């Protein structure tokens, strides 16, 4: 589905990603965890084409995508739900969702797209109540739901989620991870999840990569990483023992 080989990302003088390789197989939920500034977001932005890598390759469905502009990667089935939600605050909730299906409108009828909207509403019933409201007036948690819903509108083959828990209250975070697990259960979408909350992410993921200073420090089965003391060390600066 998605593969990254020896990716190096730099902007300005910062080398944010220093040679990362990873793979997301069909139907898999892969987590990338790591502290702030470890290069997670830069990696994702490079995968969806918002920044160009200094070196290395990005493959989407086995196609080398380095030269493909970001908006065309969306047509290849890649949906990216960006950090800090980035909903279109001045447009309605419904319009935000429809924009998520922008590339589908070229081939499919609007009625199909409205069907998907209804599906999203069953996942996030709160959005249905507020569909005509300006998105900027939603609470943080609702905005995050909208951002995920908007990404799902594409019916993506691969879904990238960048820190869905950021700035949310613990109860809402629980809800968010339930939704992620449910998407995973459908088996139609593979997910690349970036999280700061390592243990939460590891609990839902199949496999995971631990990023530190732009490098993969650990990788493997998520359940195994969950009990690996090195993960905690990477976060809290305590020596592993």
């Amino acid at each position, binding site marked *: 589905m998605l593969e990254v080989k020896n990716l190096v990302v730099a902007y300005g003088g910062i080398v944010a990603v220093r040679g990362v390789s990873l793979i997301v197989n069909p139907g898999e939920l892969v987590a990338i965890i790591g502290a702030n500034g470890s290069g997670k977001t830069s990696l994702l932005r490079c995968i*969806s*084409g*918002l920044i160009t890598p200094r070196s290395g390759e990005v493959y989407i469905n086995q196609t080398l995508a380095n030269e493909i*502009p*970001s*908006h*065309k990667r*969306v*047509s290849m089935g890649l*949906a*990216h739900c*960006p950090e800090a939600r*980035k909903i*279109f*605050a*001045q*447009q309605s909730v419904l*319009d935000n969702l*429809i*924009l*998520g299906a*922008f*590339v589908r*409108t070229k081939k499919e009828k609007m009625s199909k797209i409205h069907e998907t909207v209804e599906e999203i509403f069953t996942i996030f019933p709160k959005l249905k109540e507020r569909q005509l409201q300006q998105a900027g007036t939603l609470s943080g948690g609702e905005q995050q739901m909208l951002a995920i819903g*908007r990404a799902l509108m*594409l019916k993506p083959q691969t879904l990238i989620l960048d820190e869905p828990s950021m700035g949310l209250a613990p109860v809402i975070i629980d809800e968010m991870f339930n939704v992620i697990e449910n998407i995973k259960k459908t088996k139609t979408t593979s997910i690349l999840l970036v999280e700061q909350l390592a243990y939460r992410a590891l609990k839902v993921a199949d496999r995971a990569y631990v990023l530190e200073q732009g490098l993969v420090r650990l990788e493997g089965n998520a359940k195994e990483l969950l009990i690996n003391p090195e993960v905690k060390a990477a976060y809290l600066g305590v020596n592993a023992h």
Partner: protein
Amino acid sequence: MNQIFQIIVSGSIQGIIYALIAFGYNLTFSTSKTINFSLGNVMMLGGVIGFSLYVDIHSGNLLGHSYLFPIIGVLVAGMIAGTAIHKFAIEPSLKLKSEFTWVLATLAVGIIIKNAVEQIWSTGDFRFPSPLGDVPFRIFGTGIYPQEILLVVVATIIVFGVESFKKYTIYGKAIQAVSEDKETASLMGIPQHQVVRISFILSATIATIAGLLVAPLTFVSASMGSSLGIKAYAVSIIGGLESGKGLVVGGLILGISEFFTARYISSGYKELPGFIILILVILIKPNGLFGKTMIKKV
């Protein structure tokens, strides 16, 4: 009393002309965050091309064919001008990411257009007979030209048309998405460069239509766009770029204040109050009357 009514009506019509061109500024500002300083001269291009396709420049008589000719001519000219301005001034400026390259680039384009028209066409002033005739209506003792009514109607149709396009179609929503957040728009699969180009084509076409509509009310000349362009810019700033309400309010403030000053003080000073109001507005509200305040993050 009657006189004041006449001033308000004429001033409002003038204000609507400003607002229509200002609408063109807003369209491109929202997608590219630049002001197209050549827009006044693009409007002039509309007037000149419309004139050339409708009136014989030497005799001043009508060429005799349908008004459809100038309309089509003006639409085509607008689209070409919009594409060219985007390609030669805006796109390279945006790539450089400099604060004011676009100011000079669009100023340069405006100068080129004006000079070209002067050399290729004429430096003179010409009267453009209105297709609706030049006999004013009388409503409660206030004279209104049929051309003025046409202008108000077309301006309303254009503004409402474009606004509903933005609101109700997926492409319109895409334009709004780009103006809010280019990066996220491209994550939705929206081709932002194309959207910016379309906004420039739309904006230039509105300007050339405005030129065709305004020409019979003034004179046609290579310099007809300069001051109109600046004043329309002032209008869009008074109202606050990206605000539809602001356009109308700004246009009316400028238009009516001009007519009042011309009537009661001196016609030489008619532009003064509008520009003084502009400076005061910017001093008190740096982003215009209805503009959104931008929050800078550290």
